[in-house]
């Protein structure tokens, strides 16, 4: 028995292949269906991942950067007494780690007062000449200009804050705050730029000035509260970890953006969850489609199977034959689907998918209106595996039906 088995197997493969080639049209249709399913899933993931990557990158570029280093506890309670005690040692560590994209900041709460009214703001002193290393904030200035080297008491406000204070470019604004000992300090600034990003969290509640001016105002010459870093996304975790190890004795917090603003990360996780749901449902459509073609082709060949059984082919072998057909169709369809999907992604990545008809032409929620789909290998692998298993699964029912056939009836009725 084991002897015959070995001889029969290649025969079955040959029969399967000649079946598939003999019904080329049907084979092609089934393969197309699988490929279309896989390609559309790959595209959906690419669209989703491209959108997320765009959002994350814009989010970091807006103001917070990729990693921020403060004294332990500063992020929770931004108090000036928690200033960074040895900034030069941190910068030295960054330079030795070949991380050139850093910039220093000094942050504190303050009240911005115009002639008409007051508003609470987060006052940030930035290095005008280094800020471009870490964020694209300068591009968000819609009115006026960004900070420049040599600026004195110049101020930049968000559009909403400027509107609430009823101030315009060139107007004086008095900033009232506390120094690190709790004494009240006030200084007059001139409004030189207005951020008109349309993004939540940027247009309101912030005032930017040059690091030097703020240090002078708060009598903290040479002191800062934090260092902002911009690094490549794929190295972020690794860099954050190695930095916090390296700077362990300094009592610092090395915070990746996702730790500072977990909601953004969670939003993406949730969005992915939503897409998993969609992918699951689409998988069902693909299974149903393939089940249909396999079943129809099995029904069409009932008579053939009857004859095969009559001349002594084992039921097991007929079942195996149909399963093999399904597997072959699945593999070829998947390969084609991968090619098609990647092709579509490469193409749309170049041209971009323009949603501005639906959304208007400015960026919203850190997402640009033109989305460039991108391939994420994790999602690609998961999708391909599920489509392959789905197409195998679809072969089981027709194979089982074929195994149950009675030869005589099959020949008569088929």
């Amino acid at each position: 028995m084991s002897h015959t088995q070995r001889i029969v197997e290649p025969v079955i493969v040959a029969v399967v292949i000649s079946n598939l080639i003999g019904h080329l049209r049907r084979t092609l249709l089934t393969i197309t269906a699988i490929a279309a399913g896989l390609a559309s899933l790959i595209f959906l993931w690419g669209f989703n991942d491209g959108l997320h990557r765009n959002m994350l990158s814009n989010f970091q570029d807006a103001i917070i950067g990729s990693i921020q280093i403060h004294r332990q506890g500063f992020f929770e309670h931004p108090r000036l007494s928690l200033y960074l005690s040895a900034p030069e040692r941190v910068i030295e560590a960054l330079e030795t780690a070949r991380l050139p994209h850093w910039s220093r900041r000094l942050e504190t709460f303050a009240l911005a007062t115009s002639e008409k009214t007051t508003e609470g703001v987060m006052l940030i002193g930035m290095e005008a000449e280094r800020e471009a290393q870490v964020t694209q904030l300068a591009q968000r200035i819609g009115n006026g200009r960004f900070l420049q080297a040599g600026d004195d008491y110049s101020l930049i406000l968000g559009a909403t804050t400027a509107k609430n204070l009823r101030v315009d470019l060139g107007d004086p604004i008095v900033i009232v705050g506390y120094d690190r000992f709790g004494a009240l300090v006030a200084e007059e600034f001139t409004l030189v730029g207005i951020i008109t990003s349309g993004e939540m969290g940027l247009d309101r509640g912030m005032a930017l000035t040059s690091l030097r001016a703020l240090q002078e105002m708060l009598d903290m010459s040479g002191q800062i509260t934090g260092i902002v870093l911009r690094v490549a996304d794929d190295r972020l975790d690794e860099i954050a970890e190695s930095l916090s190890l390296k700077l362990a004795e300094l009592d610092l917090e090395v915070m990746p953006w996702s730790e500072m603003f977990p909601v953004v990360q969670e939003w993406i996780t949730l969005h992915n969850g939503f897409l998993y749901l969609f992918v699951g449902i689409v998988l069902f459509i693909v299974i149903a489609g393939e089940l249909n073609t396999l079943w129809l082709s099995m029904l069409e060949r009932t008579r053939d199977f009857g004859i095969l059984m009559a001349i002594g082919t084992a039921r097991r072998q007929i079942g195996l034959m149909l399963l093999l057909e399904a597997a072959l169709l699945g593999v070829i369809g998947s390969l084609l689907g991968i090619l098609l999907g990647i092709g579509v992604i490469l193409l749309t990545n170049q041209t971009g998918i323009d949603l501005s008809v639906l959304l208007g032409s400015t960026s919203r929620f850190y997402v640009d209106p033109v989305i460039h789909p991108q391939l994420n290998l994790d999602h690609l692998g998961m999708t391909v595996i599920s489509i392959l298993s789905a197409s195998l699964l679809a072969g089981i029912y027709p194979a089982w039906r074929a195994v149950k056939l009675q030869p005589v009836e099959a020949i008569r009725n088929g």
Partner: protein
Amino acid sequence: MADTARLGIGYYLRLSLRNLLRNPRRTGITLITMVFGISTLTLLGALNDGWLNQMKTNFILSFTGHIQIHSQGFEASQSLQDSISEPDEILRYTDYAEIIGWTLRIRTSGLASLGGSSAGVQIMATDPEQETWVTSIHENISAGRWLSPGMADDLLLGRNVAQSIGAKLGDKIILMAQRANGEMVSEVFYLRGVLATGAPQIDRTLAVIPLHTAQHWLALQNSVTDIVLRTEHHDDTDALHRLLVQHLSTDRYEILRWEELDPMVSQWLNFSDAYGLVVIFVVILLVLTEILNTMLIALHDRQKELGIMVAIGTKKSQIFLMMMLEAVILILLGSLLGYLSGGLIVYFLGDQGIDLSHFSNAFQFFYMDPVIQPLLTQDSAIRILGTTFVAALIAGIYPAWKAAQLPVTQSIRIQ
């Protein structure tokens, strides 16, 4: 020949029906593909709409209500000088059937301080009881309790505000604000509750105090800055807005819908909607490919029979008509059954929803819920059924045309 040409549409209809019934298995399989595709599309559309609707509801109930009435110019100036001095004049209209809750508020910006730390806050003074009819703020308290009627010095802070000044329940907190005449005044409050809604505008900036305290403290007598209304359904908003615009003087009052109160959120909803449209569009394409596929395979099955029809003198146009009619009957039936079965799934999922919370443990961002409750809407029904119908018809034309093109001899020979 002239005879066949005069055959009415009824004849073809009978013929098509008979064809479909004669091979129930083939008809069944084709139908199942359509039903399956359309019901999954219905479900996906409903999930998408349900998700959007939940965000809308969460947003409206978290703070803004459906409609706010201010004194003309307040939304731009945010100044106490633009307050409504006679709110009772407007409250006469609150017995409209669409309104299920209303509250009066005073909003102004200020500074909250505790010890040495202070933070800018948006002060919202409201009636402890009326507020609960309009929004769900009172349900989103992470520690402590909601305002108690009669307690004048109760204060609630957003989670992040409380955190940044290091305030704990029971702490004595000083609020500073400006009266309408410009005079700076401060008042002592006691922190009784912390708000955690997930909405940044609340968690990061809000300080809630009782309305009467604020009216007294800010020397406003009976004035308020906002009258906030909640309607029974989101769709009632526009109708109510029209009614109010008719009855109230728009020189004195501005009547704003929720979309106008926070354009950012309505843009966010548009964005989510666009995202959903792209996804659904791709799935529609996929479903159509599957339907076309099944129809083409079913056609292959019938080549012989069609060949014989041509051989005995049936015209190509007649075969085309017959095949198209079959497709139309299938599509109509498939759409109907598909939408019904999709609707049934939605109905059963309805209240329970689909729980995504294991994808993300603690998210509360942008008014999104971890549990998606699918929702059938007319728009998405029209979109899905309309596009699949038109596209399936186009998909039907191809096999029908193919059938009409078959060479006679070849089709008869095929087994």
